[in-house]
């Protein structure tokens, strides 16, 4: 022990003269840091109630409680947080699909009643709601799931522009697993899908590489997965919660992936439909489109004897005769249809109801009838020159292409219409032109401007890739006829389509004119329904709504008890509505028949 050891500690005295470091007012002087993880805030208008915050919370601190009525894409639920559980890890903020959930930098909450510590941020007003600082999801490449979808491989425009082979190649296993991994299993999409398919469930099956399970999930609500996996309008993807920050999941391609993996001879085994029961009740179905097939499938599973009446030589309706082969190859179409037929569904081809057999005959012979006759009639523009024989309807042309009939495609074509069917015919004719002339000269025009074109975006992009010219925002005025054949189309600039009240009322600048030459003009501005089989005796009992659509109850039952209708003539037009209608109608038919049986007893 030296003297130094005794003296040096006294150097501490020199601190006496220092300024004190004590925080004077600890309640106000020290707001949390900019990134502080304090109490929760939620922007309830942005929040969609997807519940990812709930599923990542390791403490089960988050409940989803009703906030408003659900709408498509918003569950109407909002997270309520239990501060008896929360640990302020902010994983809920980082995982939030809409970035609506954040933390403020407020951190003081003292209470005497422990029941107080449960609140719904954004709904229950708190003093920190307006607090701008606090934890937000870190910027930059910081994500808990991949925001970019796995790109689907398309055939190159040069490869595809002269042939009808399928242009989308489908996912490989690895791609499908990666894509399926992005799903957060919120289930928001289910309500938006018309068929209410178990989307998160089958995506989970992809993730677990359990295709058989995936197949069973698919067939619970959708008996045409190969078809839907290719041409579905995928409304589900528009509400996908991942889509708020990044690309929505490729739900459609994942569905196709599952169906593609299972060979058709395995279907019955996997779906356990080898020995279906048969009862003595019979149901007739008019039309073998998506709604007809769907109804037939579910009715058959319930044990009914089902007969389909099809006016053409092959089954599939619009899926076969309306959709070009490059989008939906016939072998895949047949795969789904043949499975349904193999369940014991009888089909009568080339049988048009209304000709030899009337609806009344069916009503007598069968316990119930379902009509899914679709929209097969082309709708005309009515402009001068449109009555020329070389001015075509797209539906007719598409049907002819499918049936293999020869089409005299001209070396220059104008298509009127900006919907998906217009794109289909544009691209089909382009392929035919390429085959015949080695070059493409086709113009499609639509009333709607570029942003509002009714066709799917990718359809327009692909059509352009293939060489078609798309001119949106023009109103057709007249078709120039020379020597009995059309030679071109006069159009004027169209500015707006709807007036303030939302009525269809196109406004055009008549002085901005354009003329597009074309030796063939195709009208593709919508389709109409052929309801000639509905004779007057039925029309009495059936109510018609706007635009000539039949009014049905929620089970698609018409005023005539045994007669059900569905598909494009009721809702849509698209495949998935047809499938959903068919399924629902099958349930309705089952109830109707069972009720009748019960009342007899």
């Amino acid at each position, binding site marked *: 022990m030296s003297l130094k050891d005794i003296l040096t500690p006294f150097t501490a005295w020199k601190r006496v003269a220092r300024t*004190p*470091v*004590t*925080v004077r007012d*600890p*309640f106000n002087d*020290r707001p949390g840091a900019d990134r502080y993880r304090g*109490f929760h805030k939620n922007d309830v208008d942005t929040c969609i109630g997807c519940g990812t915050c709930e599923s990542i919370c*390791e*403490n*089960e*601190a988050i409940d989803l409680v009703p906030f408003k009525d659900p709408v498509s894409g918003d569950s109407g639920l909002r997270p309520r947080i*239990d*501060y*008896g*559980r*929360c*640990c*302020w890890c902010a994983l809920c903020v980082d995982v939030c699909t809409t970035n609506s959930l954040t933390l403020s930098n407020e*951190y*003081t*909450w*003292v*209470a*005497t*009643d*422990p*029941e107080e*510590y449960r609140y719904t941020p954004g709904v229950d007003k708190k003093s920190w709601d307006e607090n701008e600082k606090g934890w937000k999801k870190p910027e930059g490449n910081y994500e808990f799931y991949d925001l970019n979808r796995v790109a689907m491989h398309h055939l190159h425009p040069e490869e595809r522009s002269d042939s009808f082979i399928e242009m989308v190649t489908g996912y490989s296993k690895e791609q499908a697993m990666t894509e399926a991994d992005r799903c957060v299993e919120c289930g928001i999409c289910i309500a938006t899908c018309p068929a209410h398919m178990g989307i998160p469930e089958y995506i989970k099956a992809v993730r677990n590489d359990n295709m058989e399970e995936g197949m069973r999930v698919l067939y619970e609500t959708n008996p045409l997965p190969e078809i839907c996996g290719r041409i579905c309008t995928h409304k589900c993807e528009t509400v996908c919660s991942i889509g708020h920050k990044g690309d929505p999941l490729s739900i459609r391609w994942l569905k196709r992936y599952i169906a593609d993996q299972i060979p058709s001879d395995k279907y019955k085994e996997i779906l356990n439909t080898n020995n279906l029961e048969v009862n003595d009740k019979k149901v007739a179905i008019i039309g073998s489109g998506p709604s007809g097939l769907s109804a037939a499938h579910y009715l058959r599973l319930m044990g009914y004897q089902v007969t389909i009446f099809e006016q053409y030589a092959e089954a599939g309706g619009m899926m076969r005769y309306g959709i070009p082969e490059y989008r939906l190859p016939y072998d895949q179409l047949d795969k789904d249809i043949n499975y349904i037929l193999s369940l014991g569904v009888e089909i009568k081809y080339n049988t048009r109801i209304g000709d030899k057999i009337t609806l009344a005959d069916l009503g007598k012979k069968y316990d119930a009838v379902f009509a899914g006759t679709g929209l097969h009639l082309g709708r005309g523009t009515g402009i001068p020159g449109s009555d020329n024989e070389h001015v075509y309807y797209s539906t007719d042309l598409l049907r002819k292409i499918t049936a293999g009939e020869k089409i005299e495609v001209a070396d220059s074509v104008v298509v009127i219409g900006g919907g998906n069917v217009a794109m289909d015919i544009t691209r089909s004719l382009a392929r035919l032109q390429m085959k015949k002339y080695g070059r493409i000269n086709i113009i499609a025009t639509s009333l709607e401007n570029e942003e509002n074109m009714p066709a799917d975006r990718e359809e327009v992009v692909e059509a352009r890739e293939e060489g078609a010219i798309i001119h949106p925002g023009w109103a057709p005025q007249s078709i120039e006829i020379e020597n009995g054949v059309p030679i071109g189309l006069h159009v004027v600039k169209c500015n707006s389509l709807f007036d303030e009240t939302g009525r269809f009322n196109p406004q055009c600048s008549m002085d901005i004119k354009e003329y597009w030459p074309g030796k063939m003009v195709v009208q593709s501005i919508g389709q109409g329904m052929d309801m000639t089989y509905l004779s007057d005796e039925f029309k009495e009992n059936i109510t018609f709504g706007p635009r000539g659509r039949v009014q049905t109850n929620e089970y698609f039952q018409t005023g005539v008890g045994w007669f059900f209708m569905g598909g494009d003539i009721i809702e849509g037009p698209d495949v998935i509505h047809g499938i959903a209608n068919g399924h629902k109608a099958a349930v309705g038919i089952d109830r109707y028949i069972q009720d009748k049986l019960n009342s007899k007893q």
Partner: protein
Amino acid sequence: MEKENKNIPLVKTKTFINPENEKRSVTAPDGSIIEIDPIKDYFCQDRPKEYKVRSGAVEKFLNWARAESLWVLGFGTGCGSIEIPPLVTPRFDMYRYGVQMRPTPRQSNVFIISGYLSVKTLKRAIRSYEQMPSPKYIIALGSCTINGGMYWDSYNTINRLDHYMPVDVYIAGCMPRPEALLAGFAKLKELIKAGKAEKANEYVRNLDWYKANQKKIIKDWNMPDYNW
């Protein structure tokens, strides 16, 4: 909220006796033999009594005095105790608010339950609490004391502190910052001055209910029911 079910009869649990608490006779240095029954001799087993509120200004003065000298028991029962050192050191300096740490329950009147309580600690916490002189208060920190917090599914930590001990003030956070703790003390002062920090008396009134809850989870109850 649980007023109606507070009449649960006292559960008789099997009483374990630690070897050092067993009855024994010892020989004193002078050769005489002394019988010792530690449970009886070392603990007071009487039921606790409610604190009687004095009248008017006297009580008001006493409450003011109590509120301005909160002596905290230095027992870090869980993670929350890591934020106590900043409080006793210059940055936040809680001495200026009349709050200070004491090493023994006999000198303290505030017990900070700093977060989760494992069953093993709960037993010690109850003993410490009961040894504190009345009037006494409990401040509970963090989620864990409210509804289990992080450890809601753990087999060894309690979920709701108010089932076992009476809590006057809760502070949210995991863990609450020193500033939040100071706010908690301010709230407690407010309550004491208003004469509303009555939880210790509630504990006495509902002693049987609390004891039943405590005995339900403390498997080896080797101490008297009440010791102070």
